[in-house]
C-alpha cells in the first residue's frame, strides 16, 4: 500500500522507505518559528546553545505592540534572544510585523516538502504550501530549535476531495463549518485536501481550511500542490523545493467528497465549533452586539474585500461594535519596470489590531470571566446571540444589528478576484486595489494614499461607516541594491 502526503514527507525526512500510522518517528525540522508568547518571563528558559539559528524565525505577534508592561518585558527577552544568536528572520513591531502564519506565507518560510513547527496552535496554516506544519508546545519549540529534530506519532489520514465552485457569498469558512459540523473532531488524524476545486481557490481561501483544521483537532493539515501554489512560492523565493503528491494507492482512513457548489452560509453556535454548525437561517434576526472581522483564519485582504462587498455603502448600526483586525503584513510581489520582482508589503498597523483575541474557536470559559456567546462565521454578514450576557460576532455586521443571510447583501457576482498569488501586471490591473497601490505608489513613493477596499478612491459622505484601509508608501534600498516598496497603514472606518 502507498503512502498519504503526510506519510510520504515524514518518510523522506526520516530516510525510511515507508512510515505507517502508529509509528513514532524522529525527524529533522527545517523551520522553527518562535512567537512572542514563547518569551513570557514565567515560561521562558534561556537557551545557551543554538546550532542552526538560520532555521529560526522570530515573530512578535500575539501582544504586539505590547499593551502592557509584561508584554514589553516579553518582547525584550525576544530581542535579546535574536541578538544573542544573530537571528536574521526577525519580525519586530514595524513594517515587517504581522501574524506569524501570514508572515510564513508571505515570506515563503514554509517550503513544499519541508517541516515547520511553532508554538501557535494554528501553525497547520502553512500546510497550504504542501508543507508539514504543526502547532506544538513551548518545550517542543525549544527542543526543535536546539536539537534540530522532533518526534511525531504518525496518525491516520482523512482525505477531502473538493469539487465544484463556491456559490455567491459562500466562503471556505463555510466549507470548514460544514466539515466540522458533519464529521466532528479529527483527533489524532491528519487531514489532506485536494481535488479539482483547487483550480478556483486562492491561497488565502485554502489557508482558511488549513488554519481551521486546528479546530478539528487534526494533527497535520496539508494541501496537494498545484500551479497556483508554486507560483506563490516562486514569486517570493529562489530556494529549491520539491512538491509531494499522495500515492494513488495510499491507505486513508477515509476519503470524503465535498461539493463546494452545494455549500451554504453556516454559523457555529456558542461553545464549540465541533458538531455545532447550523444554516445561517437558524440565527436569523439574532441581535448582534459586537462584530469582528479578522484573525489568522480570516484576516487577509481578500477577506476584507469580501466583507467590503457587504458593508459597502452601509453604516454600522450604533448598537454594534465592529472591530476589524487585518492579519497582514502581506507582501505582494510586483514587477518593476525593468522586469525584476520587487516586494511590496502591506502592513496593517492599527493601534490595537494585534491586541485582540484571535477568535477561531469558542469554548465555554474562553475569557474565563463571564458568559460570552461567540458565534464563529465567515467574514461576512452574520451574527450572534444577545439573550444572556455579552455577545460577539466573528464576522462583520452591517445594516441593522441582527443576523442576516449574507447572500441577500452580497453585491458582487462572486468572491472578488484578488488573485493575490498572481503577480503579473495583467492581474494587477484587473484588481482595483492593486492598481491603485501600484500606480499611486510609483507616483508618490513617499506620500500617502487612501483607498477603500473593493471600491474606488472617491470618498463620498454616503460611505460613512464603511471599512477603509489607509496606506502609506515608503521606498527603501535593499542591501542587495534593489528597491523595496513598503506599504504601511491601518484599517478603520470612514467618518
Amino acid at each position: 500500500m502507498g503512502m498519504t502526503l503526510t506519510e510520504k514527507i515524514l518518510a523522506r525526512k526520516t530516510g525510511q522507505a515507508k512510515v505507517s500510522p502508529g509509528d513514532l518517528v524522529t525527524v529533522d525540522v527545517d523551520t522553527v518559528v518562535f512567537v512572542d508568547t514563547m518569551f513570557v518571563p514565567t515560561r521562558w528558559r534561556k537557551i545557551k546553545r543554538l546550532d542552526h539559528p538560520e532555521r529560526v524565525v522570530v515573530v512578535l505577534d500575539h501582544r504586539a505592540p505590547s499593551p502592557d508592561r509584561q508584554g514589553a518585558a516579553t518582547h525584550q527577552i525576544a530581542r535579546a534572544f535574536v541578538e544573542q544568536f544573530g537571528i536574521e528572520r526577525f519580525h519586530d513591531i514595524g513594517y515587517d510585523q504581522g501574524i506569524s502564519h501570514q508572515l510564513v506565507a508571505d515570506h515563503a518560510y514554509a517550503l513544499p516538502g519541508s517541516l515547520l513547527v511553532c508554538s501557535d496552535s494554528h501553525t497547520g496554516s502553512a500546510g497550504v504550501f504542501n508543507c508539514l506544519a504543526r502547532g506544538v508546545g513551548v518545550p517542543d519549540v525549544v527542543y526543535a530549535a536546539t536539537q534540530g529534530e522532533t518526534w511525531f506519532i504518525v496518525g491516520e489520514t482523512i482525505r477531502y476531495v473538493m469539487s465544484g465552485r463556491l456559490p455567491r457569498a459562500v466562503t471556505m469558512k463555510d466549507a470548514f463549518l460544514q466539515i466540522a459540523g458533519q464529521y466532528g473532531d479529527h483527533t489524532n488524524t491528519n487531514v489532506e485536501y485536494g481535488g479539482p476545486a483547487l483550480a478556483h481557490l486562492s491561497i488565502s481561501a485554502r489557508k482558511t481550511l488549513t488554519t481551521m483544521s486546528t479546530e478539528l483537532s487534526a494533527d497535520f493539515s496539508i494541501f496537494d500542490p498545484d500551479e497556483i501554489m508554486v507560483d506563490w512560492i516562486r514569486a517570493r523565493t529562489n530556494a529549491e523545493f520539491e512538491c509531494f503528491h499522495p500515492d494513488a494507492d495510499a491507505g486513508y482512513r477515509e476519503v470524503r467528497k465535498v461539493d463546494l457548489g452545494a455549500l451554504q452560509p453556516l454559523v457555529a453556535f456558542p461553545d464549540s465549533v465541533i458538531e455545532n454548525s447550523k444554516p445561517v437561517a437558524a440565527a436569523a434576526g439574532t441581535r448582534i452586539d459586537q462584530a469582528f472581522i479578522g484573525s489568522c483564519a480570516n484576516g487577509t485582504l481578500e477577506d476584507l474585500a469580501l466583507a467590503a462587498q457587504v458593508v459597502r455603502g452601509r453604516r454600522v448600526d450604533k448598537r454594534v461594535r465592529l472591530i476589524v483586525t487585518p492579519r497582514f503584513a502581506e507582501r505582494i510581489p510586483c514587477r518593476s519596470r525593468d522586469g525584476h520582482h520587487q516586494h511590496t508589503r502591506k502592513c496593517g498597523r492599527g493601534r490595537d489590531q494585534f491586541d485582540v483575541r484571535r477568535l477561531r474557536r469558542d469554548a465555554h470559559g474562553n475569557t474565563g470571566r463571564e458568559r460570552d456567546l461567540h458565534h464563529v462565521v465567515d467574514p461576512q454578514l452574520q451574527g450572534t446571540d444577545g439573550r444572556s450576557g455579552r455577545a460577539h460576532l466573528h464576522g462583520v455586521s452591517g445594516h441593522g444589528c441582527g443576523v442576516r443571510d449574507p447572500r441577500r447583501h452580497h453585491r458582487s457576482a462572486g468572491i472578488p478576484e484578488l488573485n493575490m498569488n498572481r503577480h503579473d501586471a495583467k492581474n494587477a490591473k484587473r484588481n482595483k486595489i492593486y492598481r491603485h497601490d501600484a500606480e499611486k505608489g510609483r507616483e508618490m513613493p513617499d506620500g500617502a494614499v487612501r483607498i477603500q477596499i473593493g471600491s474606488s478612491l472617491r470618498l463620498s459622505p454616503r460611505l460613512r461607516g464603511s471599512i477603509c484601509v489607509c496606506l502609506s508608501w515608503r521606498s527603501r534600498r535593499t542591501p542587495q541594491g534593489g528597491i523595496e516598496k513598503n506599504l504601511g497603514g491601518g484599517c478603520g472606518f470612514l467618518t
Partner: protein
Amino acid sequence: MWLFDMIFEARVWKFPDNINTDLIIPSGSIYLSAQEQARLAFRASRPGWVDEVRPGDIMIAGRNFGMGSSRPAARSLKLLGLSCVIAESINGLMFRNCINYAFPAMECPGIAAAFEEGDVARVDFSAATVRNTRSGTTLTARRLPPKLLDLLEAGGIYALLEKQGIIEPLQSAI
C-alpha cells in the same frame, strides 16, 4: 500514589468530551506564574474543583481531550497534583505537552464508560492497562512508545535539555 514503573492507583475525577485548553488555562492568565495558572483550572466549568483535588488523583476524560491552544495546560494539571490523565482520545498538541512536561497521559478506548467519578483506578503505563478496582474491569490502553516513556521518566524535555547544559534552569518550579 506514585508506585514504581509508572503505575498509579488513586481516586478518579471524570471530565466530559471535548475539554478545551481554555477551560484548563483561561486565556487571560498568560502572565501569571505556573502555580497561579494552575489554580484557575476549570474555573468556568467546575469552580472549586481545584480545592478538592488530592495529590496523586487521576483524571479520566472523554474524546478529544485538550483541544485548542499550545498553552501549558499539562503543566497546570501536573502542578495540581494529578498523577496522570487517561482519555478516550487526546488532542495531538495536548498529548505532546503532557509528555514534554512529564505529565503521564494515555488514550484508552472505553475509559469514559468504565468509570464513575470517585472510583479508584489502577493505571499501568508500562503494561498499558487501566483497571477499575471497584468493578474489576480492566481495559487495554494505547501503549506509549518506549522512547516517550523514557522522556516521561526523565522529567520531560526541559529536564533533559537542562541536564545537557542547553538551557538554563528556571527559578520557579517546572
